[in-house]
């Protein structure tokens, strides 16, 4: 069966409009919009990963300090605390931080060699807990009863502002994406109307020869879709280059938070799909704009 004329757009029909893509800056404006959209999406995805990483890896982590000046008492308290932790079903992992590492952590803040040999540093135990805030409170009570020198610090408490910031950044990225999409749609609508105005005579002639609105819309829609493909390709190439460069620079920081935010292959796949979504959006917006504009005509 032959395809209906309204759905076909073969080479001769395409020639009804001048060759090439639409005039004007639309492809480049779209490229910029899609570039920013991809960057915003990458930021959002990175923040989502970081937020998940914070929740899974750090928020359930507890540091137990045995703050005791007498080294022998400190060792006894540490051993007792480790015993208690090992027996606690809420404990997933408990490991003493080597004293040298503790000293290095302190020196990192005070400067190398600033730590006098006679300064008593607390013993530290890293603990991964299951059970959330309630388990932390329970552990704190039991440890304090058995080892009065024990201090329990839930890392989540310190990380809460960071987690809030990450959430905020994620919302910001989502908001920016929505704004970019809205701006892209507006650019396409303006370009579609400009295209109609620029070819008003041709359109009127086609109408008078019996062309349907849909046939005419398809001519312009195709051109706008081609422009969007061009803009999307430019945007993807530029965004990929920027993100790879940024990723390499961030990796040099060797920060655990930054490493949490690194993009995974699935994130890259999502980002690569954004220009395609942009093309689809541009095509649909162009179609709706053109049909509405044509229906207002004679």
């Amino acid at each position, binding site marked *: 069966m032959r395809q209906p004329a309204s759905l076909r757009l*073969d080479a001769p029909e395409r020639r009804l409009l001048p060759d090439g893509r639409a005039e004007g800056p639309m492809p480049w404006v779209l490229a910029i919009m899609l570039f920013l959209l991809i960057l915003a999406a990458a930021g959002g995805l990175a923040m989502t990963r970081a937020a998940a990483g914070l929740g899974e890896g750090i928020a359930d982590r507890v540091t137990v300090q045995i703050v005791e000046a007498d080294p022998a008492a400190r060792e006894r308290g540490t051993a007792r605390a480790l015993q208690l932790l090992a027996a606690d079903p809420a404990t997933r992992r408990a490991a003493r931080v080597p004293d040298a590492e503790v000293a290095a952590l302190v020196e990192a803040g005070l400067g190398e060699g600033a730590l006098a040999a006679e300064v008593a540093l607390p013993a530290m135990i890293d603990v991964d807990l299951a059970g959330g805030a309630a388990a932390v409170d329970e552990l704190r009570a039991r440890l304090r009863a058995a080892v009065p020198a024990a201090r329990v610090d839930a890392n989540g408490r310190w990380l809460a502002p960071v987690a809030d910031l990450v959430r905020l950044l994620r919302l910001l990225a989502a908001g920016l994406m929505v704004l970019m999409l809205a701006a892209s749609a507006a650019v396409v609508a303006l370009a579609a109307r400009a295209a109609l105005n620029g070819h008003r005579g041709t359109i009127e002639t*086609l109408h*008078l020869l019996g062309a*349907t609105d849909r046939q005419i819309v398809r001519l312009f829609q195709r051109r706008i879709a081609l422009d969007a493909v061009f803009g999307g390709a430019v945007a993807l190439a530029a965004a990929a280059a920027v993100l790879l460069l940024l990723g390499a620079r961030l990796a040099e920081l060797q920060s655990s938070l930054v490493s949490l935010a690194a993009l995974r292959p699935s994130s890259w796949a999502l980002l690569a799909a954004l220009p395609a979504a942009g093309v689809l959006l541009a095509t649909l917006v162009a179609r709706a704009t053109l049909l509405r504009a044509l229906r207002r005509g004679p």
Partner: protein
Amino acid sequence: MAGDVVELENVGLRYSDAGAETLRDVRLRLTRGGFYFLTGPSGAGKTSLLKLLYLQQRPTRGLLRLFGEDVAALGRDRLPAFRRRIGVVFQDFRLIRHLSAFDNVALPLRVSGTSERDLREPVREMLAWVGLSKRQDAKPATLSGGEQQRVAIARAVIGRPELLVADEPTGNVDPGMAERLLHLFDALNQLGTTVVIATHDVHLFGRAGRARLLRLEHGTIADPTGEFAHPPRAAALAAAG
């Protein structure tokens, strides 16, 4: 009437709310297979009347029937089907400047979904008929006024329309070509097409023997005998006489 291709009843047309009526109280019936010349002084409303016939304008009042159907309030989605039954030679040709002569002539066939294979030969034949075989790849800007007019005529008749409406179709061609084009209209008319030609060219009138003359004056059809408002009655009177 079943035999009427066009029926206008008390039709008025004004282009703006404040302006005077360009056409007023037009009563007209064009029978299927008829051949009509539309004449009248400049500004009488000939082009406006043609615009109603090829559905560029709708009447502001009155009844307009085409092919037996009231089109005055026809939905936009139904207009293309009607327009494909009408061939139009526009006064300003309205050729699409990016397309070659061939593609301009092929346009109505492409719009109606004719395949490339099926349209190639008829378009070439039509271009040969109007003497433009060697100019089929030329763009309108490189064609003379007369050549453009012939392309416009070829485009209007290529789809064998049921109604052909032509606005000064021989205004830019020499007398020999005018006669040739008139033969083309005549041949189409003999195949059943109703032909309406607006023209000032008095020489054309005598060359189409079956043609009838419609005269438009001050926006209305001058029809003292009611010949065009009631063609069957006129025909009966003629038979009785």
